[in-house]
């Protein structure tokens, strides 16, 4: 059995996902970072972006994360996000509509949020 790490993906108001994984890729402010079992203890600031979790049974979980932190210690990885959505919870149509609206209103933050959602949703397909 390959080495595993325990992942907890928590949003401010709920636990989004938790389980075992072999690799987690997240975007920090200084670039993408991949965490595998046995990584050095780490605490980083997350950017808005998709987080990819390769689960130990070979599947892939993608989540859209908007701001937050990643912390890793003792083979336990915590992803803390103010807002986090799993890719299958994302309504692609709505995200597209939001992107259109954000573009029309020139709202950079909303544009980025919708963009991240769309990317996470398409990455999982």
């Amino acid at each position, binding site marked *: 059995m390959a080495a595993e790490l325990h992942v*907890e993906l*928590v*949003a*401010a*108001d*709920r*636990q989004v996902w938790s389980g075992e994984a072999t690799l987690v890729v997240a975007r*920090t*402010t*200084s670039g993408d*970072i991949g965490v595998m079992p046995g990584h*050095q*203890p*780490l*605490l*980083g*600031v997350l950017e808005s972006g998709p987080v990819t979790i390769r689960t130990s049974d070979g599947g892939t979980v993608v989540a859209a994360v908007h701001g*937050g*932190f*990643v*912390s890793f*210690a*003792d083979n336990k990885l*915590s992803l*803390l996000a*103010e807002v986090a959505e799993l890719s299958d919870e994302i309504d692609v149509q709505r995200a597209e509509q939001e992107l259109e609206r954000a573009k029309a209103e020139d709202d950079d933050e909303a544009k980025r949020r919708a963009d991240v959602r769309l990317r996470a949703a398409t990455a999982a397909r």
Partner: protein
Amino acid sequence: MGAQLRVYKRRIRSVTATKKITKAMEMIAASRVVKAQRKVAASAPYATELTRAVTAVGTGSNTKHPLTTEAQNPARAAVLLLTSDRGLAGAFNSNSIKAAEQLTARLERDGKQVDTYIVGRRGVAHYNFRERKVAESWTGFTDEPSYADAKRVAAPLIEAIEKETADGGVDELHIVYTEFVSMMTQTALDARLLPLRLDEVAAEAAPKGEILPLYDFEPSAEDVLDALLPRYVESRIYNALLQSAASKHAATRRAMKSATDNAGELINTLSRLANAARQAEITQEISEIVGGASALADATAGSDR
């Protein structure tokens, strides 16, 4: 029907209607408590992880941050008071307002100027009626606060604490909320959010004295702390909002339960009084008839002779 009896009947009817309403409110509050408690529990993982992370940065590096260092002569403090939008919750609001007033008095004794921030219409009304200054207030979400609400409340507070005291900033941030201990017990208490007492936070994060690992910070300890502390404040405010909401519903439930009980008692007393009044009426009628009959009998007996 006699006038008195009619009055009693009418009162019984009105109390019965009131009882139905309070009973319904009690049940609504009871179901809301459960919901609010669930929300408190759901927010716990985020809060715990965040506390751990703050402790890790705070103790694992020698970073100095305005949000963790105590000012030498704190001159201004912000007090955030959490009340509810609606009443009918027993002493819930007056308890938290009282706690806030005690805290304010204590801070003023220490020579600090206090800025008051209020959540909830009840608190706002209390302060406005007494014409006290309120720095900022928010209303309309106390029954079911969301994280976005907590962010909205936290934003000006974080801004105020980051500003220099001379430019209208504050040195300390206190929060007054009602802790949800159990269904029967809720206590209003005050806590200092900022500057952070790292040893206290550490005790909370690792109660068994476990040693936190040496973290690698990405991009740097300062940047992580910069990003972490506002989130920490938001999460604490969110937790306090949720606990206050749960406490408010529990207090409403209790107040409505005693109102329902009182109404039942009142109905009993009134029914007894109504019964007595009806009986008195009957007795009087009988004695009138008997009196009339015997007067007639006396009259006829007299004419016979």
